[in-house]
């Protein structure tokens, strides 16, 4: 008697690098085809539209600069959450950590803007790191002391952070110059990040961070500890590691890097503290980090591709007068296939009774 199931999934851990690459390329092609069908359905030429996405992201110096600008916060916060994920600490609170980093640094940007420029920026970065780090540390403390669930905890802290901004905007930090409509004042030039090649210098920090995190995870004792703790806490304890200390330290770093993202976004792109400073980046970062398999160099690549898609589809949208929603649907379709591909990397389908012992 054989099982009647016609199709089923089997865990597949034996794929070679080459096979995985082939799968990914195939997923990409499928994504283009499916997206193309959607474009035809709404009455446009897919080749043209895809062309616009690519050219839209690169067509001019300004477009390239805008693409990079989108990429900076995504890259940095992905690196931030990667540290926590390596430790199997499910930090989905990058949003909140970005916001708190921005809030802490904005205090200096708003109220101590007469400090010398270099010193002011330095203080803002330190403050941003502390703000984000603190927001990462809180769930870690509760996790190590009371074994709370960090997923829920970090998620909830996102909302608290959002409300902290609203509170500041409507009350203590409200711009007296704005009549009625509550907002926080624009940062003076002295508190804004300088530009390098026409883009705020956050991109340099992002690239430096890629190198640092890569080295940190692979070649330092602390990185090694993160890996061991992520694999098994009891093994780490057996090896004489101070597991609590490692969790706390790593979450300060993870949150701190997200905090830096907040500084760069507020003082480099928004020039003010807006409630949208994180704007979902902290969640996208989770996808980016996993797609890149928690590899910093991979994160650089994936976040670049994400920002091309983002920038390109906004250009496509305005060129063809598409609605925001159709651009979002297209993005969704492409993401669906790319993420779906990861399923095939880890599992495979077996049809009927094939794949047995017969050679």
């Amino acid at each position, binding site marked *: 008697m054989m099982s009647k199931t016609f199709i089923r999934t089997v865990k597949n851990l*034996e794929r070679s690098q080459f096979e995985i690459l082939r799968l990914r390329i195939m997923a990409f092609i499928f994504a283009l085809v499916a997206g193309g069908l959607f474009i035809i359905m709404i009455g446009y030429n897919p080749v043209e539209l895809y062309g616009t996405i690519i050219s839209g992201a690169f067509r001019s110096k300004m477009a390239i600069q805008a693409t990079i600008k989108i990429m900076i916060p995504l890259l940095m916060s992905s690196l931030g959450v990667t540290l926590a994920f390596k430790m199997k600490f499910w930090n989905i609170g990058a949003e909140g950590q970005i916001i708190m980093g921005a809030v802490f640094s904005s205090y200096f940007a708003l109220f101590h803007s007469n400090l010398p420029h270099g010193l002011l920026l330095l203080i803002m970065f330190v403050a941003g790191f502390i703000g984000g780090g603190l927001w990462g540390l809180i769930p870690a403390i509760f996790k190590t002391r009371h074994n709370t669930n960090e997923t829920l905890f970090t998620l909830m802290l996102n909302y608290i952070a959002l409300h902290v901004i609203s509170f500041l905007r409507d009350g203590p930090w409200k711009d007296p110059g704005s009549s009625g409509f509550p907002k926080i004042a624009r940062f003076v030039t002295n508190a804004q990040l300088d530009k390098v090649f026409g883009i705020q210098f956050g991109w340099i920090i992002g690239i430096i961070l890629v190198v640092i995190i890569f080295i940190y995870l692979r070649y*330092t004792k602390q990185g090694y500890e993160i890996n061991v703790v992520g694999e098994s806490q009891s*093994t780490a304890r*057996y090896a*004489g590691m*101070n597991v609590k200390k490692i969790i706390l330290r790593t979450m300060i770093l993870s949150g701190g890097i997200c905090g830096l993202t907040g500084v760069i976004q507020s003082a480099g792109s928004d020039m003010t503290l807006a409630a949208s400073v994180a704007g979902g980046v902290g969640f996208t970062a989770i996808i980016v980090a996993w797609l890149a398999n928690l590899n910093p160099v991979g994160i650089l690549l994936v976040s670049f591709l994400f920002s091309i898609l983002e920038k390109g589809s906004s250009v496509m949208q305005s060129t063809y007068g598409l609605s925001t929603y159709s651009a979002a649907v297209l993005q969704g379709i492409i993401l669906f296939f790319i993420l779906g591909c990861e399923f095939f990397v880890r599992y495979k389908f*077996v049809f009927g009774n094939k794949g047995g*012992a017969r050679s």
Partner: protein
Amino acid sequence: MIERNIENYAIELKGISKKFGSVVANNSIDLDIKYGEILALLGENGSGKTTLMNMLSGIYYPDGGTITVAGKDVTISSPNDAINLGIGMIHQHFKLVEAFNAVDNIVLGTKGKYQKPKVLKEKISEISNKFGLEIDSDKEVYNMSVSEKQTIEIMKVLYRGAKILILDEPTAVLTPQETEKLFRILRKMKEQGSAIIIITHKLNEVMEISDRVAILRKGNLIDTVKTCCTDENKLTELMVGRPVSLKIKRPETDNKKTILKVVDLSVVGEDGREALKNINFKLKRGEILGVAGIAGSGQKELCESIAGLMKIKHGAVLCNKENIIGKTPDEIIDLGISMSFVPEDRLGMGLVSSMGMVENVMLKSYKKNKGFFIDKNPARKLSEQLVKKLEIVTRNVDMPVRMMSGGNVQKVLLGREIESNPNVLITAYPVRGLDINSSYLIYDLLNEQKQKGVAVLFIGEDLDVLLEISDRIMVLCHGEVKGIVDAKNTTKEEIGLMMAGRSMEGADDDE
């Protein structure tokens, strides 16, 4: 009469091969087993036993070859297919739901209509009576001993109507009494016409239970012999490829000085009960102190308290007269106290399964080199040395240890501990699941350490081995020391009585 009745063959394998990358785990294996027969599968660590059986239970696909079950050609592409063909496998890692009771675990995943617990229980007790299994239907799995869990696993397979049973090293974690019980069940099943394949490294068990023995070496089937026409020495020779002496040495050392002194140690275990009760003993340089006792008598807690991993209720552990209670595991490692515990799931403690040998070897020593960065070179060199010295089978020293065969994983663990040049070497169940050759390699290594003046605490299961290798034997029962005896002047019976709870005169003299 027909000479070869095809119906009698439960399984026939022809030309079965399986490769993992460049490693040939199974090379064109031909093997068969009849209903009403017990076949033992014997082979060194990494010879491909588990892989071969995993292809029968639907976990791996063969790269080539044919499988015939009950005379029909079949393809087995999932554990479900295997069950539908009447093949059930008991893996080393049990797959039970801890929070469920016995009945729920047994029926979990079976198709068919909902049935009242009472009906199910009757059905189960009917099967139990038929094969002599002892099952407490309402007991939750987390309250069960290893042996009870194993019985549930067997019941799961029988409940699904399996006529072919595969057991992968079922006795590695059982006490001798539990093993006897298991064997009684297997014999009953055989009488009822089941086909049974059992993997074990213990030759006495092979001789006792099997009808035939199939020997694998480096992925090849070397020979299949009738158990009645062979003996342990011949089997070892077939398995290893050369004659091996089955005698354990007990070298004499002088200058035995107490290095570790345990005073009135009491520990509360995870379940809230007192796991160690006022333990007192001394461990000397240049000796092997064996620890005997049925599983769960406090062995784990003893190891973990000395290694600084457990909270102590009261008492002291003195290392060179310095109390180490209250020190962190880190500081205890620095004192030269090395502990290696091979748990029942083998990988549980001491190794990081996704990392390669190099990163595992440096687990306890990575802090030694100064600075912020890690230096993998010494660990790499050491790993390569260990591969040679302990004959570890691995593609390279960076291959994740979870891909290694069970025995090789253990060699990595023990090798690391010995290479850390300890003063005190605590090792629990170091040969669990190791093949004969590797076991003797480990015994030699322990003796080598002893001769270097290391104090060795050897927690073992096999009384014969303990009696041969130890200088003194301490017997634990329900967390109490029932006595410490001179290994040369004691008998297996005496130890057995103490394990069951009788107290004896001590041999724990000073200096």
